[in-house]
């Protein structure tokens, strides 16, 4: 385990280690690609990623590169967090909605339905995770 956080990668992250079936996601995230689990049976994408499709129960799911675009479903400025953050649900262009933060915008300037796009940022644990900014 490398004690220097700046050089941590998802390989050291306990949550990435606990979900080996999600490895492909973290690898793609390092390169700025948002992968979505998509179902071969019903054709729909879901979130959070699972090995079976929660929409039809099929085990035939595969990772597909998503567009990384979507719209704001809801957001809330968490003023008591240190530092404060803008928690949000974003509805992806592929259909499902995910929890994220809206970054690079003041909460008072945001609106439900506004278009956003993904940008990956490193987390303290070592994983790169999807954050969204307005387009």
């Amino acid at each position, binding site marked *: 385990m490398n004690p220097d956080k700046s050089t941590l990668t998802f390989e050291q992250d306990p*949550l990435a280690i*606990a979900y080996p079936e999600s490895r492909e996601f973290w690898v793609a995230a390092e390169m700025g690609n948002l992968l979505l689990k998509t179902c071969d049976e019903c054709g729909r994408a*879901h979130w*959070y990623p699972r090995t079976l499709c929660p929409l039809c129960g099929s085990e035939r799911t595969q990772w597909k590169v998503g567009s990384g675009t979507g719209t704001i479903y*809801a957001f809330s*400025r968490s003023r008591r967090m240190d530092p404060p953050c803008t928690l949000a649900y974003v509805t992806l262009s592929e259909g499902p909605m995910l*929890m994220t933060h809206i970054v690079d915008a003041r909460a008072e300037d945001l609106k439900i339905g506004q278009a956003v796009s993904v940008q990956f940022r490193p987390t303290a644990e070592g994983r790169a995770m999807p954050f969204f900014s307005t387009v």
Partner: protein
Amino acid sequence: MSTQKHAHVAGIFEHPTRFAPDKSVPQLHAECAVGALRDAGLSLSDVDGYFCAGDAPGGGPLWMADYLNLKVRWLDGTEAGGCSYLAHIQHAAVAIAAGRCSIALITLAGKPRSSGMATGTMPQTAGSDRPEAPWTSTYRWSIAGIYGMCAQRHMHQYGTTLEQMAWVKVSASHHAQYNTRALLRKLLTIDDVMDSPVISDPIRRLDCCVITDGGGALVLTTPEIARSLSRPFVRVIGAGQTIYTNDGGYCDLTRTGAERSGAAAFREAGIMPSDIDYASIYDNFTIAVIMQLEDLGFCEKGRGGAFVADGNLISGVGKLPWNTDGGGLCNNHPMNRGGITKAIEAVRQLRGEAHPAVQVKNCRLALASGPGLVTGGGHAHASVIFERN
């Protein structure tokens, strides 16, 4: 198997403390257990079924059963967050109807207040073993943040206003002023709520429930044993439980599991929402009450804001007397879990034991309903309907 007519509520107890730095969690559970059994006219040696949730020491029913030295033949440790105890009522009713136990004890206790827990505003880090954790823990989400988004979305879709949300807190405070044990007894105005600082947009401090130490307990039993005791007859006539999942990323933040748990309870009881004389509805946040009133069928979806306005939830004033103990918003929210106090106040109302200033006249049918935990955007939900005979 139907729960109908079999399970009677023999004993109830709400711990009087709201701050208990000098007591352990097992001690609080034990005091609640003994309190509810004393109310029923029973003792620990009579208990043959024990039910508790994740707040119990050890996380399951074994440790408190050992502490209390229970000789049980039925154990249930179902963890569904704050509504666990409403689900336990249904489980106990089914077990009693099936002859698996005859005196069921349900306990809840905890001390978030004395341990300085910032329940609603701290990042939720607990449960890193939950399957959604890799996809949510990074975002430092809080309970207030989630309900903030529910409120924002409800306002966006249905035109619900901050003032309508404030009415829920004001209504609770109208009841809490009579409850000497309520943590927040001050009679609040709409302006008090509107002017309180924003915690997580658009939720303000006074849209949130209180944080308290304490607990509660219930004792359920058979009709035969209930007849041998000296307490008023209150029986379970309908119950329902569910999980409102995140639906693979397609859930609607303005809806709750009350749609299903409430419908199941009303169907089993054979009554309509308009038949309910008194309702306990879990009030961790003001918006939660509005959403559940709609989903339980007390008004049309999206009309909850209008329903709660102008004191419609205030006993003696409005059409639906609600949370007459002051609820989680003003009275008590032991261990951040409001299910058991909802059932306790419903039973008080049916027994005629509520505070005279808030007691509903001829209260015959009461509902206790609420959500539990947040799971990837969804939550658990349970509802129980009681009838006085």
